[in-house]
């Protein structure tokens, strides 16, 4: 039996090489914290009195350790600092982020899983506690770094091996590694193994991330009824496990029950209203369900909460304005759009969002001239725009063309959207809604069918070439198709696959491998849970390590 020895932190913990940022609105507390840190030999030590200042400092140079108070008074909260830091890449897996709170608060466990701090410290605490915590976190980050590296390379098999090696040693952060192992199994598409893994873990206690992992496994494996049962069971036991609401709504959407999905999200925001992404999601669901009353409330909350959040976007405003039109209050919609202009003064995409929606609202107000003017301005922005526009913005633009009488341009644009997203059910629903709203339901159905057949035909011809063993021709064919449809996940996935099949027969080369990576990254960007993606990454990693051996 090990006996506890009195640790001496000054000697054990040396933070000389670490860059540290302290964020608290209380000068007094910042000073105390800085004194503690100096006693651990911290030299590079900055502090910030509010969230904006913290973000500015994080942008200017990366910190190794960030200690941030949860409650920062006016402006951004500590949670929003964490979210923005991660969102902008100022905080990555090697950064230690500790949230300091005055108490054990419910809001702490309410946020999305990917925006959790490494740990919490509850005020007040003595120097020894801080030192102990930092020491533990440095150890944790060190034993995770190899796994994180294989994950960044999408090498799931290697990451799993590393997890298993660590688990055998039962380190103090065992739970964290087990959690990671489950997530990697899901990323790898090993659903059977993942289900067994989570079932085994559940025998040890009702840990919510384990139950959620088990539910996610069922969801990803397409066992929707089972996933629904699991998520409902979690919420029955503890109605504060917020991610369970998100996954339950996703499951219900897969089961084609958008009404039920909306109700789930309504329950979620009634328990935890301060969650901008959830409010946004609820707004979108309700809008699609044509429940404009609920949509308006949710979008209003989204706009209000976006004030200090990196998750604010112009579409929060335009969605609210569109909803107000449906609520027979287009004037209020114009006011919302005017405030969007002030919030995003320099952003071209935002300008486009606003102009497109303004044109729509003017048209509803029978201000035809203003509507045309706004549309023309929008068109001008599109012409000068560099890069590809987000699909929802393109769809808004198409609707505005149609209601301004330019059916041809509108439906041509919709065809383009459909070509990139021919099997995205959510997008298809949104397109159908636009067609319904503009009185083009029948025509729209035909357009959707046409495009889907076109893509299936295009894809099948390429697949046939590959099946007939004409791999070189298949590559040329798919590369051309991918050039035309740079965002279509199936075309990109198949392009990557034929390239890899070719290399498996003829040996790998750098140039083709880097092309494959580009195609796979496009698929990942379009749909992280694309069903063939794990298999494709495994092929890719096989080719890379094969190359190493000769």
């Amino acid at each position, binding site marked *: 039996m090990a*006996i506890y020895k009195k640790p001496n932190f000054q000697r054990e913990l040396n933070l000389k090489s670490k860059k540290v940022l302290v964020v608290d609105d209380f000068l007094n507390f910042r000073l105390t914290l800085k004194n503690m840190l100096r006693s651990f030999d911290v030299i590079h030590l900055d502090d910030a009195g509010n969230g904006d200042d913290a973000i500015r400092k994080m942008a200017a140079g990366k910190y190794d350790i960030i200690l941030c108070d949860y409650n920062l008074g006016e402006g951004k909260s500590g949670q929003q600092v964490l979210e923005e830091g991660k969102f902008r890449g100022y905080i990555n897996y090697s950064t230690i982020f500790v949230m300091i709170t*005055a*108490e054990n608060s419910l809001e*702490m466990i309410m946020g999305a899983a990917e925006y959790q701090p490494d740990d919490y410290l509850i005020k*007040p605490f*003595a120097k020894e506690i801080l030192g102990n915590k930092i020491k*533990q976190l440095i150890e944790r980050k060190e034993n995770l770094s190899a796994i994180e590296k294989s994950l960044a390379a999408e090498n799931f098999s290697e990451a799993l091996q590393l997890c298993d090696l660590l688990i055998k040693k*039962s380190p*103090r952060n065992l739970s964290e590694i087990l959690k990671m192992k489950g997530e990697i199994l899901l990323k790898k598409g090993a659903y059977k193994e993942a289900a067994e893994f989570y079932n085994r873990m559940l025998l040890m*206690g009702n840990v919510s991330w384990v139950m959620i992992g088990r539910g996610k496994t069922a969801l990803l494996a397409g066992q929707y009824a089972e996933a629904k049962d699991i998520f409902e069971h979690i919420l029955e036991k503890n109605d504060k496990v917020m991610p369970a609401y998100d996954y339950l709504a996703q499951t219900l959407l897969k089961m084609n029950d958008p009404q039920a999905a909306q109700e789930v999200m309504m329950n979620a925001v009634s328990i935890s209203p301060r969650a901008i992404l959830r409010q946004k999601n609820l707004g979108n669901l309700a809008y699609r369900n044509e429940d404009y009353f609920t949509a308006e409330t949710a979008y209003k909350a989204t706009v209000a909460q976006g004030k200090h959040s990196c998750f604010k976007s112009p579409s929060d405003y335009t969605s609210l304005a569109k909803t107000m039109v449906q609520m027979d209050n287009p004037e209020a919609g114009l006011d919302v759009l005017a405030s969007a202009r002030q919030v995003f003064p320099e952003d071209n995409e935002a300008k486009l969002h606003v102009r497109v929606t303004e044109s729509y609202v003017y048209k509803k107000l029978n201000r035809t001239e203003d509507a045309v003017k706004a549309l023309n301005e929008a068109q001008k922005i599109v012409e000068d725009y560099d890069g590809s526009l987000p699909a929802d913005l393109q769809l808004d633009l198409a609707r505005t063309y149609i209601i301004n009488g330019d059916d041809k341009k509108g439906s041509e644009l919709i065809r383009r959207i459909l070509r990139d997203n021919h099997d995205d059910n959510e997008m298809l629903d949104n397109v159908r809604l636009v067609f319904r709203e503009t009185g083009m339901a029948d025509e729209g159905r035909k357009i959707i069918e046409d495009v889907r057949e076109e893509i299936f035909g295009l894809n099948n011809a390429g697949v046939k070439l590959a099946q007939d063993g004409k791999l070189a021709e298949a590559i040329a064919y798919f590369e051309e198709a991918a050039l035309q449809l740079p965002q279509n996940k199936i075309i990109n996935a198949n392009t990557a696959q034929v390239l890899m099949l070719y290399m498996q027969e003829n040996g790998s080369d750098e140039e083709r491998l880097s092309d494959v990576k580009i195609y796979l990254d496009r698929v990942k960007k379009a749909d992280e849970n694309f069903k063939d993606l794990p298999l494709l990454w495994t092929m890719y990693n096989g080719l890379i390590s094969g190359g190493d051996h000769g």
Partner: protein
Amino acid sequence: MADKMDFSDILASTLHDTKNSLGLLFNNLEDIISGCRGQKCPACMEFYKLQYEIKRLNHSFIRLLSLYKAEKSQLAFNIDYHSIREVLEDAAVQHEALLNAKGIEIEINCSSSLFWAFDRNLIAGVLDNIINNCFRYTKEKVRISSFMTNGYLVIRIEDDGPGYPSSMLFNEDSNPQFEKGIDFRTGSTGLGIYFSVMVASLHVNNGRSGFISITNGGQLNGGVFSLYLP
């Protein structure tokens, strides 16, 4: 006229505010202590006593606020697997300086391969309270141990002091079915036991609930506090 506020809400927000002031007080005192520790200042022991009382107050506030939140269904309850050794060491580090200053030593007896599923913050709140009290009631040694028995994880805190008064002895048979009404009239300690019982019983696994026991004797022939988690 303004709407009438719920009195428990007023109490809670006042407590919250007071707890923040207490936090500042605690930190100022920390600065003073770290300054005078090096200089072998004779007042140092007095400052430690102050710190002990501040911690006591702070623990009372945490308990009260937790009970208030539980009442309002606002209590955060977050079960995860934890290294028991790490949790016990964290608890020891909290109180080490204070107890050492009075010549009290903390001993931890626990295998580093022991892991269990529970809410870390709530359990830490229970342990903090018991260990802090050792400042007043223990002579020279506190023993914190953890082991498994009958499918429960036991966390035990023993001291070499005079033991608990008979009015505080609780659940001496270590029987999970045993329930004793809390009598607040017997003294200020009722709330501590109430909180510990609540936290223990929130932990349920396979139809079994957690519980506590308070007895005298043990390895150090003093007070023995045990927390059983399913």
